């Protein structure tokens, strides 16, 4: 039930009083929003609390939502704003070292990280993990505006238009931010490459 309905139709039904349909929205967006929050905040432990706050805020502000506009960018915009607020609150406490140490937490690595692509090779695995850690470090060190574009583009697979709608910026701005972000993450760095 409700699985075939679009986000906008579901929101409309919620607005009409069928609040149980909110469960469908939660199931659709909980995983991707959690990862988005995790990328933006760089903190896994706080990501779920933030996600809960995001859904509470979405539910409370569904009345102000214009159902003629796409729902997805709106949800991400709400999430981004909340992450901003969260980062602002903890800006003084959140240093780069803490963020990096959080990224290096072995508990963050899943089983799939430990499984090599073709063949198990401890040296290659170590190299790949090092490369991935360096990549995450570079993403963390991106300016916030570039980071949100980079995350939306590479992790959430948003199109330029959706990013522009989400961030309420022109598409050209999105492209330039993404270009600069990719350049800093992928190209302008020293070090070895994974085999």
């Amino acid at each position, binding site marked *: 039930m409700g699985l075939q309905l679009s986000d906008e139709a579901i929101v409309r039904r919620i607005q009409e009083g069928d609040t149980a349909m*909110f469960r469908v929205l939660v199931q659709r967006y909980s995983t991707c929003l959690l990862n988005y929050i995790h990328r933006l905040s760089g903190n896994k432990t706080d990501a779920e609390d933030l996600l809960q706050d995001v*859904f509470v805020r979405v539910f409370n502000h569904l009345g102000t939502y214009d159902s003629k506009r796409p729902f997805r960018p709106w949800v991400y915009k709400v999430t981004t704003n909340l992450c901003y607020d969260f980062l602002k609150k903890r800006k003084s406490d959140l240093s780069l070292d803490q963020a990096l140490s959080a990224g290096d937490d072995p508990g963050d*690595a*899943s089983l*799939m990280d430990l499984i090599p692509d073709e063949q198990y090779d401890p040296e290659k695995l170590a190299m790949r993990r090092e490369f991935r850690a360096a*990549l995450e470090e570079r993403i963390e060190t991106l300016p916030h505006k570039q980071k949100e574009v980079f995350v939306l583009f590479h992790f959430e697979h948003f199109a330029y238009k959706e990013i522009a709608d989400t961030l309420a910026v022109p598409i050209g701005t999105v492209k330039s931010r993404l270009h600069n972000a*990719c350049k800093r993450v992928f190209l302008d760095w020293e070090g070895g490459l994974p085999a």
Partner: protein
Amino acid sequence: MSTGTHNHQRYINLLLKKYVDHQISPSRDAALQRHLEDCPDCRLQRTRLLAGQRALDNMPRLKPSRSFEKELFLKLGIPGAAAPAPPRHARFSGPRLRLLAAAVPLLFVSFILVRGHLAIPEPDRFHDDSATRSVQPTASRATPLEKAVTTNLRALLREKGRPASRASGRVRMDTERTRVRRVLRIPAAPRKEHKKAETSRGKSRPTPSVDRVSKTARKDGPARGLTFRAEKRQPATRKAEDERRRHPSPAATRKKAPATKSGTRDLKKQDGDKRRTKRAPTSRPRPTANQAPDEGHRREKQKKQNDVLLRTRPSKKMEEQKPSSQRNKRLADSTGKRGGGPRPGFAQQQQQQPATAKKSQERPDMARRRTSASRKKAKHKGESARRVVRYYTVRRPRARIKLQLAPSEHSNLQPHLAELRKRLARYFPAGTRFRFQIMAPQEQKQNLREGDAQPSPTRPLSLPLLLWLLLELGVRVYLLLAIRSRRPANAALWSAGALLLGTLCLLLWALRRPEAA
């Protein structure tokens, strides 16, 4: 230099456009390819870009906890919006499905192996017990005993005018426990009588003690009772002789003499037997070393005494317990020379008591047991009589014979079972108890038993099963590799294919089994 750097930056932008935006014109793409062939730095940048993008794609993704939705809806206060149980197909997705796919064939194979190939065949007690044998007489495994039963059964039916060519018998031999009742006769305890005799005689002559006598009698076996009573008489005889020697009156001699003569009988009974008392010799002085009668009278006396001794001849051990001079003298008189030689007294004694000796020879253990029981009883109760009932549990052979013939013939056979039992008795051990069971022939069981003799209860490892096992093994290995290389879609496909093929192989194997059998 600045131109080179500018060109380099231009190609970097082109790289980003190509691999990030995927928006690059063919002409620019061709120019980029030409530049990459010449510029190793740009090739390195391209490698970094591709590796980074691949790493981003493989970045782990978090999942909210299971309690997230519940907590969220509690926080929102939305009634009835709590997450229901996941759908059934979702419960067995991902790793669970793979685990299930691996477990089901393994369980199936284990079941087949255990049931069909590795299981020890269930022992058939009817066949395996060495004490019991049952084989269809019609089959080649019929025992001679069963053949004899079948032959006698058919002959009996033929004689009674009811020939039954298909009648057969099955024999099952075993034992049954039976309680046997035995009545034991216990001889009297001689202790008091010996004491009396000893008291009257004094201690001038050594006599065997009661214990020694009993022990000797027990060792002697068949003739122990006789020996015992003969020895028991001696003190009384000696006493009479002493009395007679002191007071040689004929009346006294007549009174005491019978006891000497009838030493083989019971003391009390013989004392009261007047007829024997009259026939007894009036004087039978016991020869002693101190006596010196004349030769003729001495020989006559010894001859008469010898007659008495032949009747009351004790056993060898009792003989040895007597004074050596007396024993040697008697032996010399009986054989005509001194020392050695056969002992006719003992042979005669055995002839006088054939029934007792035979009985004791047949069951020496019982005799020994009886002696022990009688001794104990006499010792404890002090009684002279002794009839003791003992119960023993023995195993007796039992033959369970199943007579298989047509149901219409059952009533005809019933009255002739006693005759059949008589005929069959010579084939079985003595004392076998027969139990007949008349039943209809069991065709199905016959077929099974005859069939069981041919094939082994363990099935051979068939080729389809072997192929399936190999296929399963290969697929499982592939699944592991596929999961490691993160291609779960292929793993699920192969798993499903392996299950299907395995099922088909087993189906073929199951269909071919009856033909092979």
